[in-house]
């Protein structure tokens, strides 16, 4: 069974018919070609698939493509600009906040949303706000440092 959708992915509109069962993450990977979004579990725990839907970080593995009809999606591929990496990506690079990289797109997308919406961030708050993202490599401290740094930079820029 199919359903028609019109979804903007990283500023590019995508109008097509998809199976009703198609999850947003599969649409992003298989239809929109954004393979930076990956899946690390079946139960909505790991957060590897986090993307922005109309400006909110959500887990694209627990959302139907049909539910995103009319929405604007931002994925890891849409984060960098012509000037280079997004400050959050840069902060992750500088703080060695990634190793294997599998959880990275999801955490970066959540972190960008966190910094946009929270203006007073400390370590404890960040650790709570990224509880929906599992990372097996880093032990998280460098991730926290990267987000703190990007938050400081956002504040300076604001």
């Amino acid at each position, binding site marked *: 069974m199919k359903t028609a959708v019109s979804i903007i992915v990283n500023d590019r509109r995508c109008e097509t018919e998809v199976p*009703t069962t198609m999850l947003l993450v599969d649409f992003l990977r298989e239809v929109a070609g954004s393979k930076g979004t990956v899946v690390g579990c079946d139960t909505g725990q790991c957060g590897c698939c986090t993307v922005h839907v109309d400006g*909110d970080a959500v887990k694209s593995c627990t959302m139907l493509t049909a539910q995103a009809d009319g929405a604007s999606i931002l994925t890891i591929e849409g984060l960098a600009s012509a000037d280079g990496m997004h400050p959050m990506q840069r902060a992750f690079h500088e703080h060695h906040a990634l190793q294997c990289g599998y959880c990275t797109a999801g955490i970066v997308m959540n972190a960008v949303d966190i910094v946009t919406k929270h203006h007073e961030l400390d370590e404890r708050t960040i650790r709570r706000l990224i509880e929906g993202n599992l990372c097996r490599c880093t032990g998280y401290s460098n991730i926290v440092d990267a987000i703190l740094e990007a938050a400081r930079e956002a504040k300076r820029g604001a």
Partner: protein
Amino acid sequence: MMYEFAYVRPASLEDAVRALRMHSEAKPLAGGMSLLSAMKLRLAAPTHLVDLGRLDGLAGIAGNNQAITIGAMTRHADVAASPIVREAIPALAVLAGDIGDRQVRHRGTLGGSVANADPAACYPAAVLGLAGTIITDRRHIGSDDFFRGLYETALETDEIVAAVEFTRPARAGYMKFPHPASRFALVGVFVAEFGAGNVRVAVTGAGPRVFREARLEAALAKEFTPTVASAVAVSAEGLNSDRAASAEYRAHLVSVMAARAVAWALAPTSQS
């Protein structure tokens, strides 16, 4: 990977009810946090999903001196951030702000949680603890009559939750002891005091469904202090016992979390 289903996007609440009535194996889809997860694991196989996501009027928050009413499709994140909720029932805002994780709170809805009646979900504790009223497309159901059992409510199969009305308490608190892996409530206790001698204590996570703890209510009605709550020996009978916690440990946690919820109610802070 889900079994096949038809996706239905109704134009109105009546439309949605009609769609549910027409197909016996149809299910309403709210945020989808529980339903889609179950479908992915092939634990649920509705033939039709009736998406409530675009129905105007199902989301929103309004309040008066006696109560606040929250639309069923209001997301956890919006409840947590709502100035109305934070002013009227800060414990409810804190509860909503600690459900799942922030990605989940951007999708999950009050109505979805209440209708699903997961025995370890947070919202049912607030609905029951705050003497809430579940407003459906056809009637009002008091929270004491609503939660019937494991994933079982008073809702008819074609009935849709439209909003929940929460009574404003004098003070309230919610404390959750999270499951180490899933972060659902291993035990969550909502306490609310509605003026002298009227206390409700609702417990989630500990039993097959959310329930009121009579002994705690009686003790706290006399004196609303953490010490009183700690001193109540909660019975382990009928409580869940699993790999994460025995019934005995859960019973113990009920009184500890109740005491902490009372302490919070007496001196609220921004975080639980």
